[in-house]
């Protein structure tokens, strides 16, 4: 037992300090996309809506409606439009109101 205790001290602690301090593994998590609104056109938005398997994306006129709660972070929208989409890096997404997870992305690119 003392041997195992000494070994534990020598090898260090594996437990994350997460809520108190950031965890380095967070950088490797798949995360929902963030959109570059100036690269978005209605056409690009429609293509992303078409490939989204989780129906997390909808388009209403010049607004892309992104439901973060529905997003599975599969990356298909980023494959479809690599210029307009990049991983957001956000994983602390818990919300007390479902409506807080629905984001409106303005479509600023295209003919203007």
């Amino acid at each position, binding site marked *: 037992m003392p041997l195992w205790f000494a070994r534990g001290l020598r090898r260090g602690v594996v437990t*994350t300090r997460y809520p108190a301090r950031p965890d380095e593994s967070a950088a490797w998590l798949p995360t929902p996309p963030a959109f570059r609104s100036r690269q978005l056109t209605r056409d690009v938005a429609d293509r992303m809506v078409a490939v989204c398997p989780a129906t997390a994306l909808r388009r209403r006129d010049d607004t892309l409606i992104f439901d*973060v709660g529905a997003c599975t972070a599969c990356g298909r929208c980023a494959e479809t439009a690599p210029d307009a989409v990049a991983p957001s890096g956000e994983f602390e997404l818990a*919300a007390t109101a479902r409506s807080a997870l629905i984001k409106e992305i303005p479509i600023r690119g295209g003919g203007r």
Partner: protein
Amino acid sequence: MNPGRDEAEAARRLRDTISTQFGRSLHIRTLDTGSCAVCEQEIRLLTAPHYDLHRLGFFFTPAPRHADLLLVTGPMIRAFDVAARKTYEAMPGPKVVVATGACALGGVYPKDPFVHGNAGEVLPVDVWIPGCPPSPLALLHGLGVAVGRLAEMTPGLTFIADSAAGGGEA
């Protein structure tokens, strides 16, 4: 938007009650309502040495009677209606319901004759944890939000990579 604000207000009151009544000891019952079991894998990882959920005062319990928090995964299949209701009713109050994963949040399965497609259709959900699956870190954050120990981040996030001033990025 009034009902939303009322819900948020009620959830905040409940969290205050729970943080005072349960202090740093909260018992979790998981409820699988037709999930693919990947959410369960991530939940199980919470008790592994790396995440060590117990250091934060959260514990898993097999009995809803002993649970303070119901961790719901899956798209809420209709065949599970009775069991879900019984589980919720068996829990002593005050109680918190946390919907976990894109299925429970209404993402992956649309509402159809077999699934409700959203945990909120059957249970009064207090905290929503997105992700497919939510990583153990995301679950830890969600549990922290549920008991009022961690702040919610989503209201401040836009998911727009180029802000009003930007535009130079590739």
